[in-house]
């Protein structure tokens, strides 16, 4: 058994300004806020081997979260109303979230493990969205996961893990690139499966791969807002930005290259590729799939290791993130108020050489 205490304090200053080239004049301010947040939590964990074939993990976590928000641009004054009050608001909010977790493991065979887990947690709120004295609307997260884990081969050279999961959020959020913050979109559910394989046929070779398929949907419509009284998203719509398929493949080689001055010179080579399928975007659009390969080559002699890391090995031009929102890149022309596709370019081929000294 284990009992623990977890604390976290954050002091956050947020500011977003719009500037106009070429003088970089500030012509609009969108965000100017200071947030103090505290999270004090405690947990109890129990690990109980009931029989030779059954093992139970269980626990409880309790968190209290406090927020103090000073939003100097909140309570904005619309153009049509008299300026008879001061913009800004100062609010505090407090709430408590409790979360039991548990795992049941069955060990019917030496090489087979069957598991079922449940956890109830929370996602901390966007502080700027809290009202004064509001019981912080913690997003409750209910997670189920069940599956099999296998260790095959004489020396357990092949490890397989197949798990299905289902996660429900009472209030999900998606990134709003215009405000550079998260916006509530309503309850959501993620259902999917993960297959992970780890294969080490020889001491010098390790292969690993994982395939994750997830279907993330809204289960209820998002709350209406002043700007969108009839929300466009409907139950069953895909959650933006969540890739339905993620694949990761890795290979690592290691072995002695030669002897130098009586000590082995050892070489390492690692290659990894990650594939993200087309991600759903707002307005029924999808981003392009992304596939990036990274590599590492290193050599170690005694206490010294020289490594060369290559990120985006094939210098693939890709969009790391894609967004659809309204923007205006020509301040001298009548702006379009329709959402347009934007990308954040992925980093090009990057080489990083490093020298390590092991003491």
């Amino acid at each position: 058994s284990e009992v623990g205490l977890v604390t976290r304090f954050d002091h956050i200053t947020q500011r977003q300004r719009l500037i106009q080239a070429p003088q970089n004049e500030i012509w609009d301010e969108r965000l100017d806020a200071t947030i103090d947040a505290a999270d004090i939590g405690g947990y109890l964990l129990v690990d109980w081997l009931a029989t030779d074939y059954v093992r139970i993990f269980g626990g409880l976590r309790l968190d209290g979260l406090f927020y103090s928000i000073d939003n100097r641009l909140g309570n904005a004054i619309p153009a049509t109303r008299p300026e008879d009050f001061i913009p800004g608001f100062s609010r505090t909010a407090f709430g408590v979230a409790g979360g039991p977790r548990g795992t049941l493991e069955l060990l019917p065979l030496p090489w087979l493990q069957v598991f079922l887990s449940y956890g109830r947690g929370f996602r901390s709120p966007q502080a700027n969205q809290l009202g004064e004295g509001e019981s912080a609307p913690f997003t409750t997260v209910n997670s189920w996961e069940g599956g099999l884990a296998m260790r095959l081969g004489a020396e357990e050279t092949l490890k397989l893990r197949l798990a299905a999961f289902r996660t429900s959020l009472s209030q999900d959020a998606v990134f709003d690139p215009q405000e550079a913050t998260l916006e509530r979109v309503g309850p959501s559910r993620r259902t999917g499966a993960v297959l992970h394989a780890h294969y080490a046929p020889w001491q010098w070779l390790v292969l690993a791969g994982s395939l994750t398929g997830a279907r993330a949907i809204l289960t209820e419509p998002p709350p209406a807002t002043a700007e969108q009284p009839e929300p466009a998203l409907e139950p069953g719509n895909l959650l933006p930005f969540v890739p339905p398929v993620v694949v990761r493949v890795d290979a690592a080689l290691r072995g002695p290259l030669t002897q130098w001055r009586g000590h082995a010179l050892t070489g390492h080579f690692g290659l990894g590729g990650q594939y993200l399928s087309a991600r759903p975007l707002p307005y029924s659009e999808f981003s392009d799939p992304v596939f990036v390969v990274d590599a590492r080559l290193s050599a170690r002699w005694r206490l010294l290791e020289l490594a060369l890391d290559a990120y985006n090995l094939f210098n693939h031009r890709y969009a790391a993130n894609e967004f659809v929102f309204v923007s205006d890149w020509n301040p001298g022309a009548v702006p379009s108020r329709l959402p347009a596709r934007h990308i954040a370019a992925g980093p090009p081929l990057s080489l990083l050489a490093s020298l390590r000294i092991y003491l």
Partner: protein
Amino acid sequence: MSQPPYAFTPVNGELSPARPTKPWPQMAAALARVCRAAVARQRHTVAGIMLLCLTVSSACQDTGQTRLTVALQVAGTAARPVVQGPWQLQLTEATVALGPMYFCATVAADSDLCRAAQLELPQAVTLNALDAAPMDAGSLQGVSGTVQSTLFDYGFAWLLTTPRPIAVPGAETGRSAVMAADVTDGTRSFRVRALVDVLPLVAGSFAVRGARTTHTLVDSGDTLQVRLDPQLWWQGVDIAALAALDEAVVELTPDSTAYNALVIGMTSTALPSFTWSR
């Protein structure tokens, strides 16, 4: 302090324990055997098919709104006399610039509440407002959803980044409206000319905010007809006061009551009508 041998796994940059080593030639040969075995069993094919199925099944769903276009027609109203007491005003010219125009999801359309439009016409369309025949004016671009109001200008836009309103592309006369009319009471006649500039009141705003029109946009194929009636604008003009000027040609100036009456008509009391059809 010595460290155990580690093999790099670039998944997450972590190091994982490695096993004792073998010479490189053996490694290469063994690796080739693994690859051949994998190909022989067509594992990659199965994995590829699974991946494709997952991707396709996920991509077949939507994420809310869809993009669409709506055909735009603009029309005026056939000339008819505006009668005030003994005076009869007959418009002979009414060239009007309409736009930019944005259709919003909110009932109370305001620039701040309509940052993302349902439909838009980001330029102006110039029309003969005395011609009742609908004129094709291109198409509006937009996204599906319900339109509940509109924001628009008459050929001028005041951007947040400009110190004053600017005429927008498509406003052929450089004015909001160029109008001329003949006025008579049967014994006496004179002519009225008005070069009207309808300007937004503040930067980032619109001349007309929150004009009501409701329509649900599902997909492309709808047509929107915007009809103007310039005669209604002149109903607010005191024609007798113009006659009292006793001039053969009366030019309406921005500081005149008649000019302001036209602006009020264009922005408030006699707004265009919006007719949606399939």
